[in-house]
């Protein structure tokens, strides 16, 4: 008989690897939700029709020219990726999935850390694929539409900043979802109660004209123009959310 001391790092590493390779539905759902988002983004456009008249020299108007400019964007792709990361987080956070983690030599901490690292990796992959998905939308235009798409041309650093921003938002969604699902498992009433509270806040803020916390939070992240400060905000906020999740889950028993 021998005893081997296994480090926390090794356990977490094994569990992360297991989660990434075993929960195949996450990868399949990533593909299909993003493809659905790409298809939606490719067909839904904002159309702007206009009659153009020259105004040079002033006061003289020409025969009208009819122009139509359709604007397509990747909002649906982004929304579908949000849904995917929320669904994946819920999947990783539910009790039945957690039980599998304890088939390993595992502690509550290693299980928690492995879930967080898995979420970070999923978020990174989601951010990269959603960003690359823009190219597929553009290519669909080129192949199936007679009109011409125009992409914004970014520098390499701008692309990095864009992907980092997407990663930040997805991570925030993941962290918030993880906390939400943990609260839900703590007490089934908590999550609906939070949502009702959210609805009441929105309604009351509209009635009594005050800035509700969700709006302030949205502006806190959405109005940030510096990527470094945004990353800092995301790190702090995500740490708070994950920390809260740890407080909620650390004393829970593993139920079979």
């Amino acid at each position, binding site marked *: 008989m021998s005893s081997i001391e296994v480090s926390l790092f090794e356990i977490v590493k094994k569990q992360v690897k297991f989660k990434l390779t075993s929960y195949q539905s996450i990868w399949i759902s990533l593909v299909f939700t993003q493809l659905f988002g790409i298809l939606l983004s490719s067909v839904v456009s904002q159309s702007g029709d206009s009659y153009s008249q020259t105004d040079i020299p002033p006061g003289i108007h020409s025969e009208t020219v009819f122009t139509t400019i359709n*604007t397509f964007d990747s909002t649906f792709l982004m929304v579908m990726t949000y849904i995917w990361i929320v669904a994946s987080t819920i*999947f990783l956070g539910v009790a039945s999935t957690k039980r599998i983690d304890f088939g390993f030599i595992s502690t509550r901490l290693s299980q928690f850390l492995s879930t967080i690292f898995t979420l970070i990796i999923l978020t990174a992959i989601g951010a990269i694929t959603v960003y690359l998905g823009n190219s597929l939308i553009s290519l669909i*235009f080129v192949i199936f539409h007679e009109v011409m798409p125009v992409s914004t041309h970014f520098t390499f650093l701008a692309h990095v900043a864009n992907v980092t921003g997407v990663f930040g938002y997805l991570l925030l969604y993941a962290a918030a979802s993880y906390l939400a699902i943990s609260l839900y498992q703590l007490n089934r009433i908590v999550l609906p109660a939070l949502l009702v509270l959210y609805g009441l806040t929105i309604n009351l803020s509209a009635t009594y004209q005050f800035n509700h916390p969700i709006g302030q939070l949205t502006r806190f992240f959405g109005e940030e123009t510096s990527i470094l400060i945004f990353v800092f905000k995301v790190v702090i906020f995500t740490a708070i959310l994950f920390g809260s999740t740890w407080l909620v889950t650390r004393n829970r028993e593993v139920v079979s």
Partner: protein
Amino acid sequence: MNIGSFIPLILVVLLTYGLVQMAKRNKTRSKLRISRKMVFYIPVGYLLVLIISTAILYLVPVNEDSKLQTVEQSFIDMYNDNYLLLHEGKLDAVNPAFIIRQWHQGVTNQKLLVKPRTLGKMPVLIVIERIPGYSDTIDSFLFEGKLVMGDYEVKGYNDDVVISPKANELTIWNKGDRSYKMAYFQYDMIMTQFTSGTSYDNSHSTEEWLPTLYLKIPESIEVTIDEGIKEQVTEL
């Protein structure tokens, strides 16, 4: 209180509940099971498609077609300067590259009628410069027009303009439908939150400069402009 605002919340609760139940039930998962090979090939194939799409977009100039061509704002400014010079009667100062057609028209009886072929407005502006002296020849210059949609210039914009000088008449019309269409793709605003400064103008404004027909007409020639197009004619 707006009850309607609770509908999304109810949907979120139901969605969350449904997702949780789906994840908890092994039966649901078994129904959706895909073979291990496919589970590997689908995501990898998807990633490859994304990478190839990106490579194609960056390597192949698919952003321009035969009808549209990128145009720099500095070029448009330069063109606009020339356009203004022309309308001020400074034809000699205009860049000759913008004169797309030039011809002489002889008239009889010292009379000229400028008119559209059909009722309505014409696809050109007309600038008339009267030159002193007696002659029966009119020098005509067609200055290029431009249609710019966003950052793109519509190529062939001037091709549909028809000017027909015959005897004592100058008839002008447009043979095309003068309808233009294009599409833009733009990143979701979340994706460009930190690089909005490098993004193009989202307004996608359309600017048009009609072709200008510059006529040097001797004072001895009597010019009659059709009533319907008088507002498009500038006499210097």
